[in-house]
Protein backbone atom coordinates (compact mmCIF):
# COMPACT_ATOMS: atom_id res chain seq x y z
CA UNK A 1 0.00 0.00 0.00
CA UNK A 2 1.38 3.42 -0.98
CA UNK A 3 1.46 6.28 1.51
CA UNK A 4 -1.57 8.56 1.14
CA UNK A 5 -1.90 12.23 2.10
CA UNK A 6 -4.34 15.12 2.00
CA UNK A 7 -3.23 18.07 -0.13
CA UNK A 8 -6.08 20.52 0.39
CA UNK A 9 -9.44 21.03 2.09
CA UNK A 10 -12.47 23.21 1.58
CA UNK A 11 -15.86 23.82 3.14
CA UNK A 12 -18.73 26.27 2.93
CA UNK A 13 -20.07 28.00 5.98
CA UNK A 14 -22.56 25.62 7.58
CA UNK A 15 -26.06 26.88 8.37
CA UNK A 16 -28.99 27.92 6.22
CA UNK A 17 -28.06 28.34 2.57
CA UNK A 18 -29.86 29.71 -0.46
CA UNK A 19 -27.45 27.80 -2.68
CA UNK A 20 -28.23 24.40 -4.21
CA UNK A 21 -26.43 21.20 -3.22
CA UNK A 22 -24.36 21.38 -6.40
CA UNK A 23 -23.52 25.07 -5.95
CA UNK A 24 -22.36 24.50 -2.37
CA UNK A 25 -20.31 21.49 -3.43
CA UNK A 26 -18.69 23.50 -6.24
CA UNK A 27 -17.57 26.13 -3.70
CA UNK A 28 -16.07 23.56 -1.33
CA UNK A 29 -14.54 21.50 -4.15
CA UNK A 30 -12.87 24.46 -5.84
CA UNK A 31 -11.47 25.66 -2.49
CA UNK A 32 -9.96 22.20 -1.92
CA UNK A 33 -8.57 21.96 -5.46
CA UNK A 34 -7.06 25.45 -5.44
CA UNK A 35 -5.56 24.90 -2.00
CA UNK A 36 -3.88 21.77 -3.31
CA UNK A 37 -2.00 23.49 -6.13
CA UNK A 38 -3.72 21.39 -8.77
CA UNK A 39 -6.38 22.02 -11.39
CA UNK A 40 -9.71 20.27 -11.94
CA UNK A 41 -8.28 18.46 -14.99
CA UNK A 42 -5.77 16.73 -12.67
CA UNK A 43 -8.51 15.02 -10.60
CA UNK A 44 -8.83 11.35 -11.59
CA UNK A 45 -12.00 10.42 -9.67
CA UNK A 46 -14.74 12.00 -7.55
CA UNK A 47 -16.00 10.24 -4.40
CA UNK A 48 -19.19 12.17 -3.77
CA UNK A 49 -21.41 12.11 -0.68
CA UNK A 50 -25.08 13.01 -0.50
CA UNK A 51 -27.91 11.37 1.43
CA UNK A 52 -31.24 13.02 0.84
CA UNK A 53 -30.95 15.02 -2.38
CA UNK A 54 -34.11 13.47 -3.84
CA UNK A 55 -36.15 14.83 -0.89
CA UNK A 56 -34.28 18.13 -0.58
CA UNK A 57 -34.32 19.18 -4.22
CA UNK A 58 -35.84 16.37 -6.27
CA UNK A 59 -32.30 15.60 -7.37
CA UNK A 60 -30.92 12.06 -7.57
CA UNK A 61 -27.75 10.89 -9.32
CA UNK A 62 -25.93 14.04 -8.27
CA UNK A 63 -22.30 12.85 -8.60
CA UNK A 64 -21.83 13.36 -12.36
CA UNK A 65 -23.47 16.79 -12.12
CA UNK A 66 -21.03 17.67 -9.31
CA UNK A 67 -18.08 16.63 -11.50
CA UNK A 68 -19.46 18.77 -14.29
CA UNK A 69 -19.82 21.81 -11.99
CA UNK A 70 -16.11 21.52 -11.15
CA UNK A 71 -14.91 20.82 -14.69
CA UNK A 72 -13.49 17.42 -13.82
CA UNK A 73 -12.44 15.41 -16.88
CA UNK A 74 -14.88 12.93 -18.42
CA UNK A 75 -12.37 10.16 -17.65
CA UNK A 76 -12.85 10.75 -13.88
CA UNK A 77 -15.54 8.40 -12.53
CA UNK A 78 -17.95 10.30 -10.28
CA UNK A 79 -19.66 8.00 -7.79
CA UNK A 80 -22.18 8.75 -5.06
CA UNK A 81 -21.70 7.31 -1.58
CA UNK A 82 -24.50 7.08 0.97
CA UNK A 83 -23.95 5.94 4.55
CA UNK A 84 -26.42 8.22 6.36
CA UNK A 85 -24.50 10.69 8.56
CA UNK A 86 -21.18 8.89 7.90
CA UNK A 87 -21.50 9.36 4.13
CA UNK A 88 -18.43 11.40 3.25
CA UNK A 89 -16.17 9.70 5.83
CA UNK A 90 -16.96 6.39 4.15
CA UNK A 91 -16.33 8.00 0.75
CA UNK A 92 -12.96 9.25 2.05
CA UNK A 93 -11.94 5.81 3.30
CA UNK A 94 -12.69 4.20 -0.07
CA UNK A 95 -10.88 7.00 -1.91
CA UNK A 96 -7.79 6.75 0.31
CA UNK A 97 -7.53 2.98 -0.10
CA UNK A 98 -7.86 3.23 -3.90
CA UNK A 99 -5.12 5.88 -3.96
CA UNK A 100 -3.04 3.68 -1.65
CA UNK A 101 -3.60 0.71 -3.95
CA UNK A 102 -2.37 2.68 -6.97
CA UNK A 103 -5.67 2.82 -8.86
CA UNK A 104 -5.61 6.64 -8.74
CA UNK A 105 -2.92 9.19 -7.90
CA UNK A 106 -5.12 12.18 -7.08
CA UNK A 107 -8.85 12.31 -6.30
CA UNK A 108 -11.49 14.60 -4.83
CA UNK A 109 -13.70 13.47 -1.94
CA UNK A 110 -16.54 15.40 -0.39
CA UNK A 111 -20.20 15.78 0.34
CA UNK A 112 -23.09 18.20 0.24
CA UNK A 113 -26.47 18.39 1.94
CA UNK A 114 -29.40 20.79 2.24
CA UNK A 115 -30.90 19.27 5.36
CA UNK A 116 -32.28 22.56 6.67
CA UNK A 117 -34.08 23.22 3.39
CA UNK A 118 -36.50 20.34 4.11
CA UNK A 119 -37.95 21.84 7.30
CA UNK A 120 -38.13 19.96 10.62
CA UNK A 121 -41.07 17.65 9.86
CA UNK A 122 -39.88 16.27 6.49
CA UNK A 123 -36.26 16.25 7.67
CA UNK A 124 -37.23 14.20 10.74
CA UNK A 125 -39.16 11.78 8.48
CA UNK A 126 -36.37 11.38 5.93
CA UNK A 127 -33.64 11.08 8.58
CA UNK A 128 -35.75 8.30 10.12
CA UNK A 129 -35.34 6.42 6.83
CA UNK A 130 -31.92 5.51 8.21
CA UNK A 131 -33.73 3.18 10.63
CA UNK A 132 -35.16 -0.24 9.67
CA UNK A 133 -38.29 0.67 7.69
CA UNK A 134 -40.36 -2.43 8.55
CA UNK A 135 -39.47 -3.09 12.18
CA UNK A 136 -38.32 0.29 13.61
CA UNK A 137 -39.58 3.35 11.72
CA UNK A 138 -43.31 2.49 12.07
CA UNK A 139 -42.92 2.89 15.86
CA UNK A 140 -42.26 6.57 15.11
CA UNK A 141 -38.58 6.25 15.91
CA UNK A 142 -36.52 9.40 15.35
CA UNK A 143 -32.78 9.94 15.63
CA UNK A 144 -33.12 11.91 18.85
CA UNK A 145 -35.17 8.91 20.02
CA UNK A 146 -32.31 6.50 19.27
CA UNK A 147 -29.85 8.44 21.41
CA UNK A 148 -32.50 9.18 24.04
CA UNK A 149 -32.89 5.43 24.55
CA UNK A 150 -29.10 5.12 24.82
CA UNK A 151 -29.07 7.90 27.46
CA UNK A 152 -31.77 6.20 29.55
CA UNK A 153 -29.92 2.90 29.33
CA UNK A 154 -26.65 4.62 30.34
CA UNK A 155 -28.23 6.20 33.43
CA UNK A 156 -29.79 2.89 34.45
CA UNK A 157 -26.74 0.71 33.77
CA UNK A 158 -24.29 2.91 35.66
CA UNK A 159 -26.84 4.00 38.31
CA UNK A 160 -26.33 7.69 37.61
CA UNK A 161 -29.29 9.89 38.63
CA UNK A 162 -30.89 11.13 35.41
CA UNK A 163 -30.69 14.80 36.41
CA UNK A 164 -26.96 14.42 37.09
CA UNK A 165 -26.40 12.75 33.69
CA UNK A 166 -28.45 15.50 32.03
CA UNK A 167 -26.32 18.24 33.64
CA UNK A 168 -23.19 16.48 32.39
CA UNK A 169 -24.71 16.12 28.90
CA UNK A 170 -25.57 19.83 28.93
CA UNK A 171 -21.90 20.61 29.64
CA UNK A 172 -21.03 18.86 26.35
CA UNK A 173 -23.34 21.28 24.53
CA UNK A 174 -21.91 24.27 26.42
CA UNK A 175 -18.35 23.25 25.48
CA UNK A 176 -19.16 22.64 21.82
CA UNK A 177 -21.09 25.91 21.51
CA UNK A 178 -18.11 27.75 23.01
CA UNK A 179 -15.85 26.07 20.43
CA UNK A 180 -18.31 26.97 17.67
CA UNK A 181 -18.18 30.61 18.76
CA UNK A 182 -14.52 30.55 17.67
CA UNK A 183 -15.29 29.02 14.26
CA UNK A 184 -16.41 31.46 11.53
CA UNK A 185 -17.81 28.57 9.47
CA UNK A 186 -19.99 27.17 12.28
CA UNK A 187 -23.79 27.13 12.00
CA UNK A 188 -24.06 28.52 15.56
CA UNK A 189 -21.42 30.97 16.76
CA UNK A 190 -22.86 31.84 20.13
CA UNK A 191 -22.13 30.59 23.62
CA UNK A 192 -24.82 28.96 25.73
CA UNK A 193 -25.15 27.94 29.38
CA UNK A 194 -26.30 24.77 31.11
CA UNK A 195 -29.61 26.55 31.72
CA UNK A 196 -30.02 27.14 27.96
CA UNK A 197 -29.99 23.37 27.53
CA UNK A 198 -32.10 22.46 30.55
CA UNK A 199 -34.75 25.11 29.77
CA UNK A 200 -35.10 24.15 26.09
CA UNK A 201 -38.03 22.13 24.76
CA UNK A 202 -38.04 18.36 25.19
CA UNK A 203 -37.42 16.54 21.89
CA UNK A 204 -37.18 12.89 22.97
CA UNK A 205 -36.95 12.21 26.72
CA UNK A 206 -34.38 12.86 28.15
CA UNK A 207 -32.92 14.85 25.21
CA UNK A 208 -33.85 18.52 24.97
CA UNK A 209 -33.44 20.80 21.96
CA UNK A 210 -29.95 21.94 22.95
CA UNK A 211 -28.83 18.32 23.40
CA UNK A 212 -29.42 17.96 19.64
CA UNK A 213 -27.39 19.10 16.66
CA UNK A 214 -29.25 21.19 14.07
CA UNK A 215 -30.37 20.36 10.55
CA UNK A 216 -27.83 22.29 8.44
CA UNK A 217 -26.97 23.08 4.85
CA UNK A 218 -23.36 22.88 3.73
CA UNK A 219 -20.65 21.19 1.71
CA UNK A 220 -17.06 20.10 2.25
CA UNK A 221 -14.32 18.52 0.15
CA UNK A 222 -10.72 17.29 0.38
CA UNK A 223 -8.08 16.40 -2.21
CA UNK A 224 -6.49 13.02 -1.49
CA UNK A 225 -3.33 11.93 -3.32
CA UNK A 226 -0.30 9.70 -3.25
CA UNK A 227 2.05 11.17 -0.62
CA UNK A 228 5.06 11.88 -2.84
CA UNK A 229 2.81 13.84 -5.15
CA UNK A 230 1.40 15.84 -2.22
CA UNK A 231 4.90 16.67 -0.93
CA UNK A 232 5.56 18.25 -4.32
CA UNK A 233 2.36 20.30 -4.20
CA UNK A 234 1.92 21.79 -0.72
CA UNK A 235 4.05 22.81 2.26
CA UNK A 236 2.14 20.79 4.88
CA UNK A 237 0.91 17.41 3.70
CA UNK A 238 -1.32 15.66 6.23
CA UNK A 239 -0.91 11.90 6.14
CA UNK A 240 -3.55 9.17 6.43
CA UNK A 241 -2.22 7.02 9.28
CA UNK A 242 -5.03 4.51 9.73
CA UNK A 243 -8.70 3.94 9.02
CA UNK A 244 -11.55 1.76 10.19
CA UNK A 245 -15.12 1.09 9.22
CA UNK A 246 -17.67 -1.27 10.71
CA UNK A 247 -21.37 -2.09 10.32
CA UNK A 248 -24.22 -3.21 12.54
CA UNK A 249 -27.89 -4.05 11.98
CA UNK A 250 -31.10 -2.67 13.44
CA UNK A 251 -30.87 -0.90 16.79
CA UNK A 252 -32.82 -3.58 18.70
CA UNK A 253 -30.28 -6.20 17.56
CA UNK A 254 -27.50 -4.19 19.22
CA UNK A 255 -28.98 -4.70 22.70
CA UNK A 256 -26.65 -2.70 25.00
CA UNK A 257 -26.87 0.81 23.53
CA UNK A 258 -24.22 2.16 25.92
CA UNK A 259 -21.65 0.24 23.88
CA UNK A 260 -21.48 1.16 20.20
CA UNK A 261 -19.90 -2.12 19.11
CA UNK A 262 -19.40 -1.06 15.48
CA UNK A 263 -17.36 1.91 16.75
CA UNK A 264 -15.27 -0.35 19.00
CA UNK A 265 -14.58 -2.56 15.95
CA UNK A 266 -13.80 0.38 13.67
CA UNK A 267 -11.46 2.21 16.08
CA UNK A 268 -9.55 -0.99 16.88
CA UNK A 269 -8.74 -1.38 13.18
CA UNK A 270 -7.81 2.29 12.82
CA UNK A 271 -5.51 2.22 15.87
CA UNK A 272 -3.80 -0.95 14.64
CA UNK A 273 -3.32 0.36 11.12
CA UNK A 274 -1.90 3.64 12.46
CA UNK A 275 0.22 1.95 15.11
CA UNK A 276 -1.15 4.29 17.78
CA UNK A 277 -3.40 4.09 20.81
CA UNK A 278 -5.83 6.39 22.59
CA UNK A 279 -3.01 8.09 24.49
CA UNK A 280 -1.47 9.28 21.18
CA UNK A 281 -4.51 11.23 19.95
CA UNK A 282 -3.96 15.00 20.38
CA UNK A 283 -7.24 16.24 18.95
CA UNK A 284 -10.51 14.59 17.98
CA UNK A 285 -13.54 15.51 15.89
CA UNK A 286 -16.26 13.05 16.83
CA UNK A 287 -19.92 12.47 16.06
CA UNK A 288 -21.76 14.55 18.68
CA UNK A 289 -25.13 14.48 16.92
CA UNK A 290 -26.51 14.48 20.48
CA UNK A 291 -24.73 15.29 23.73
CA UNK A 292 -24.91 11.67 24.95
CA UNK A 293 -23.27 10.61 21.67
CA UNK A 294 -20.03 12.41 22.60
CA UNK A 295 -19.97 10.61 25.94
CA UNK A 296 -20.47 7.19 24.31
CA UNK A 297 -17.74 7.97 21.75
CA UNK A 298 -14.98 9.00 24.16
CA UNK A 299 -15.56 5.75 26.03
CA UNK A 300 -15.43 3.70 22.80
CA UNK A 301 -12.06 5.24 21.92
CA UNK A 302 -10.52 4.22 25.24
CA UNK A 303 -10.13 7.83 26.38
CA UNK A 304 -12.27 6.81 29.38
CA UNK A 305 -13.41 3.55 30.91
CA UNK A 306 -16.99 2.56 30.13
CA UNK A 307 -19.36 4.41 32.44
CA UNK A 308 -16.67 6.92 33.45
CA UNK A 309 -16.71 9.43 30.57
CA UNK A 310 -19.99 11.15 31.31
CA UNK A 311 -18.57 14.04 33.35
CA UNK A 312 -15.52 14.71 31.13
CA UNK A 313 -16.92 18.00 29.80
CA UNK A 314 -18.14 19.05 33.26
CA UNK A 315 -14.64 18.76 34.74
CA UNK A 316 -13.07 20.42 31.71
CA UNK A 317 -11.04 17.49 30.44
CA UNK A 318 -12.37 17.70 26.86
CA UNK A 319 -12.17 21.50 26.46
CA UNK A 320 -9.27 23.59 25.20
CA UNK A 321 -7.56 23.50 28.60
CA UNK A 322 -8.21 19.79 29.06
CA UNK A 323 -6.07 16.76 28.42
CA UNK A 324 -7.87 15.70 25.23
CA UNK A 325 -9.54 18.37 23.11
CA UNK A 326 -12.80 17.05 21.68
CA UNK A 327 -14.60 18.83 18.82
CA UNK A 328 -12.60 22.08 18.63
CA UNK A 329 -14.67 23.03 15.54
CA UNK A 330 -17.85 23.12 17.64
CA UNK A 331 -18.74 19.60 16.54
CA UNK A 332 -22.01 18.66 14.92
CA UNK A 333 -23.72 20.43 17.81
CA UNK A 334 -22.52 23.95 16.96
CA UNK A 335 -20.64 23.71 13.66
CA UNK A 336 -23.74 22.04 12.23
CA UNK A 337 -24.66 18.75 10.59
CA UNK A 338 -25.32 18.79 6.84
CA UNK A 339 -25.20 15.02 6.94
CA UNK A 340 -23.52 14.17 3.64
CA UNK A 341 -20.93 16.91 4.21
CA UNK A 342 -20.18 16.19 7.86
CA UNK A 343 -17.38 13.62 7.50
CA UNK A 344 -15.13 15.57 5.17
CA UNK A 345 -15.81 18.71 7.26
CA UNK A 346 -14.50 16.83 10.31
CA UNK A 347 -11.47 15.83 8.23
CA UNK A 348 -11.08 19.47 7.15
CA UNK A 349 -10.95 20.60 10.81
CA UNK A 350 -8.37 17.97 11.76
CA UNK A 351 -6.21 18.83 8.72
CA UNK A 352 -6.29 22.52 9.68
CA UNK A 353 -5.55 21.67 13.33
CA UNK A 354 -2.54 19.55 12.33
CA UNK A 355 -1.34 22.36 10.06
CA UNK A 356 -1.67 24.83 12.93
CA UNK A 357 -4.11 27.06 11.02
CA UNK A 358 -7.01 27.26 13.49
CA UNK A 359 -6.27 30.56 15.19
CA UNK A 360 -8.26 31.04 18.41
CA UNK A 361 -9.37 27.42 18.47
CA UNK A 362 -5.95 25.94 17.69
CA UNK A 363 -4.95 22.92 19.78
CA UNK A 364 -1.30 23.73 20.47
CA UNK A 365 1.19 21.24 19.07
CA UNK A 366 -1.41 18.80 17.72
CA UNK A 367 0.32 16.12 15.65
CA UNK A 368 -2.15 13.22 15.53
CA UNK A 369 -5.88 13.68 15.07
CA UNK A 370 -8.90 11.37 15.03
CA UNK A 371 -12.08 11.65 12.97
CA UNK A 372 -15.20 9.72 13.99
CA UNK A 373 -18.50 9.61 12.13
CA UNK A 374 -21.58 7.55 12.93
CA UNK A 375 -24.29 6.76 10.37
CA UNK A 376 -27.83 5.58 11.04
CA UNK A 377 -28.84 4.05 14.36
CA UNK A 378 -25.28 2.90 15.13
CA UNK A 379 -25.30 1.08 11.74
CA UNK A 380 -22.18 2.58 10.16
CA UNK A 381 -19.08 3.73 12.01
CA UNK A 382 -16.03 5.14 10.30
CA UNK A 383 -12.77 6.39 11.83
CA UNK A 384 -9.83 8.16 10.20
CA UNK A 385 -6.53 8.85 11.98
CA UNK A 386 -4.41 11.63 10.46
CA UNK A 387 -0.85 12.72 11.32
CA UNK A 388 1.23 15.76 10.46
CA UNK A 389 4.53 13.97 9.84
Amino acid sequence: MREVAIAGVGMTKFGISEKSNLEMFAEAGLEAIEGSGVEPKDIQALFFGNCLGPFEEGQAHMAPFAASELGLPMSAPATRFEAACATSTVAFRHAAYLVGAGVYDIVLVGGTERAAAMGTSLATRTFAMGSQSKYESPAGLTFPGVFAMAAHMYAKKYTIPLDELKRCMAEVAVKNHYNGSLNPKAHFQKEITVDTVLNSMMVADPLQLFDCCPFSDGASAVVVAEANKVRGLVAHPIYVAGMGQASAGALYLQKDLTRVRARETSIKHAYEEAGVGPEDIDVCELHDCFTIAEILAIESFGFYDFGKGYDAALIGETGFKGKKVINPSGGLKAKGHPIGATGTAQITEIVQQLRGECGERQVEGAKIGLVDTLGGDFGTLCNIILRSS
Partner: protein
Amino acid sequence: MSYTLTFSQYHEGLKKGKFLGLKCDDCGAYTFPPLGVCSNCGSSSMQVTEIEGRGTIRTFTVIRVAPEGMTPPYAIVIVELEQGPWVMGNIVGLNPDQLSLDLIGRKVIMGSQPVKGDMFTREDIRILTFHVA
Protein backbone atom coordinates in the same frame (compact mmCIF):
# COMPACT_ATOMS: atom_id res chain seq x y z
CA MET B 1 -32.05 -19.92 -1.63
CA SER B 2 -35.48 -18.54 -0.73
CA TYR B 3 -36.04 -16.21 2.24
CA THR B 4 -37.42 -18.32 5.08
CA LEU B 5 -39.89 -15.86 6.65
CA THR B 6 -40.67 -12.66 4.76
CA PHE B 7 -41.97 -9.44 6.26
CA SER B 8 -45.20 -10.07 4.40
CA GLN B 9 -45.66 -13.46 6.09
CA TYR B 10 -44.61 -12.02 9.48
CA HIS B 11 -47.09 -9.17 8.96
CA GLU B 12 -49.94 -11.55 8.07
CA GLY B 13 -49.14 -13.32 11.34
CA LEU B 14 -49.42 -10.07 13.31
CA LYS B 15 -52.86 -9.43 11.80
CA LYS B 16 -53.97 -12.80 13.20
CA GLY B 17 -52.42 -12.15 16.61
CA LYS B 18 -49.45 -14.47 15.98
CA PHE B 19 -45.77 -13.58 16.36
CA LEU B 20 -44.00 -15.54 13.64
CA GLY B 21 -40.25 -15.89 14.11
CA LEU B 22 -37.48 -18.35 13.38
CA LYS B 23 -35.86 -21.12 15.41
CA CYS B 24 -32.34 -22.08 14.42
CA ASP B 25 -31.76 -25.76 13.55
CA ASP B 26 -28.10 -25.48 14.57
CA CYS B 27 -27.99 -23.44 17.81
CA GLY B 28 -31.64 -23.34 18.85
CA ALA B 29 -31.75 -19.54 19.16
CA TYR B 30 -34.85 -17.58 18.20
CA THR B 31 -34.71 -14.76 15.63
CA PHE B 32 -37.59 -12.28 15.83
CA PRO B 33 -38.46 -10.28 13.80
CA PRO B 34 -37.05 -12.35 10.92
CA LEU B 35 -33.64 -12.00 9.31
CA GLY B 36 -31.98 -13.88 6.46
CA VAL B 37 -29.92 -15.95 8.91
CA CYS B 38 -29.94 -16.81 12.62
CA SER B 39 -29.17 -13.65 14.63
CA ASN B 40 -27.08 -15.73 17.06
CA CYS B 41 -24.94 -18.05 14.91
CA GLY B 42 -25.52 -17.05 11.26
CA SER B 43 -27.01 -20.36 10.19
CA SER B 44 -29.51 -20.22 7.32
CA SER B 45 -31.15 -23.42 8.50
CA MET B 46 -34.16 -22.19 10.48
CA GLN B 47 -37.79 -23.18 10.99
CA VAL B 48 -40.74 -20.81 11.25
CA THR B 49 -42.13 -20.88 14.76
CA GLU B 50 -44.50 -18.90 16.96
CA ILE B 51 -42.79 -16.58 19.46
CA GLU B 52 -44.24 -16.06 22.92
CA GLY B 53 -45.04 -12.50 23.81
CA ARG B 54 -43.51 -11.90 27.26
CA GLY B 55 -40.49 -9.76 27.98
CA THR B 56 -38.77 -7.05 30.00
CA ILE B 57 -38.30 -3.37 29.11
CA ARG B 58 -34.61 -2.52 28.62
CA THR B 59 -34.94 1.15 27.62
CA PHE B 60 -37.45 3.71 26.40
CA THR B 61 -38.00 7.26 25.20
CA VAL B 62 -40.96 9.57 24.70
CA ILE B 63 -40.99 11.18 21.26
CA ARG B 64 -42.13 14.82 21.41
CA VAL B 65 -40.94 16.01 17.98
CA ALA B 66 -42.28 13.45 15.53
CA PRO B 67 -41.70 12.63 11.88
CA GLU B 68 -44.26 13.90 9.37
CA GLY B 69 -47.46 11.90 9.77
CA MET B 70 -46.97 10.86 13.43
CA THR B 71 -48.71 12.49 16.41
CA PRO B 72 -46.61 13.02 19.57
CA PRO B 73 -46.21 12.36 22.40
CA TYR B 74 -45.77 8.59 22.24
CA ALA B 75 -43.35 6.20 23.90
CA ILE B 76 -40.95 3.78 22.21
CA VAL B 77 -39.45 0.85 24.08
CA ILE B 78 -36.82 -1.79 23.48
CA VAL B 79 -37.82 -5.08 25.09
CA GLU B 80 -35.87 -8.28 25.77
CA LEU B 81 -38.20 -11.23 25.15
CA GLU B 82 -38.00 -14.23 27.47
CA GLN B 83 -37.03 -16.36 24.47
CA GLY B 84 -33.99 -14.16 23.80
CA PRO B 85 -34.66 -11.67 20.98
CA TRP B 86 -34.65 -7.93 21.63
CA VAL B 87 -37.41 -6.02 19.83
CA MET B 88 -38.67 -2.46 19.38
CA GLY B 89 -42.21 -1.14 19.62
CA ASN B 90 -44.58 1.30 21.29
CA ILE B 91 -45.73 1.21 24.90
CA VAL B 92 -49.52 1.28 25.25
CA GLY B 93 -51.78 1.77 28.27
CA LEU B 94 -49.50 4.24 30.08
CA ASN B 95 -49.49 8.03 29.94
CA PRO B 96 -46.30 9.03 28.09
CA ASP B 97 -46.02 12.11 30.31
CA GLN B 98 -45.78 9.96 33.46
CA LEU B 99 -42.92 7.62 32.56
CA SER B 100 -39.65 7.49 34.48
CA LEU B 101 -36.50 5.38 34.56
CA ASP B 102 -38.46 2.94 36.76
CA LEU B 103 -40.08 1.71 33.53
CA ILE B 104 -36.81 -0.08 32.73
CA GLY B 105 -37.04 -3.61 34.10
CA ARG B 106 -40.85 -3.79 34.01
CA LYS B 107 -42.40 -6.99 32.63
CA VAL B 108 -44.53 -6.51 29.53
CA ILE B 109 -46.86 -8.42 27.21
CA MET B 110 -46.45 -8.03 23.44
CA GLY B 111 -49.19 -7.10 20.96
CA SER B 112 -49.33 -5.14 17.73
CA GLN B 113 -51.23 -2.24 16.22
CA PRO B 114 -51.56 -0.79 12.73
CA VAL B 115 -49.68 2.38 11.80
CA LYS B 116 -51.02 4.41 8.93
CA GLY B 117 -48.72 4.28 5.92
CA ASP B 118 -47.41 7.37 4.15
CA MET B 119 -46.25 8.10 0.61
CA PHE B 120 -42.97 6.34 1.36
CA THR B 121 -44.21 3.10 2.96
CA ARG B 122 -47.30 3.02 0.66
CA GLU B 123 -49.22 0.75 3.05
CA ASP B 124 -50.27 0.45 6.67
CA ILE B 125 -47.76 -1.49 8.75
CA ARG B 126 -48.39 -3.15 12.09
CA ILE B 127 -45.82 -2.34 14.75
CA LEU B 128 -45.23 -4.27 17.97
CA THR B 129 -46.83 -2.86 21.11
CA PHE B 130 -46.23 -3.61 24.77
CA HIS B 131 -48.39 -3.21 27.85
CA VAL B 132 -47.24 -3.69 31.41
CA ALA B 133 -47.96 -7.21 32.66
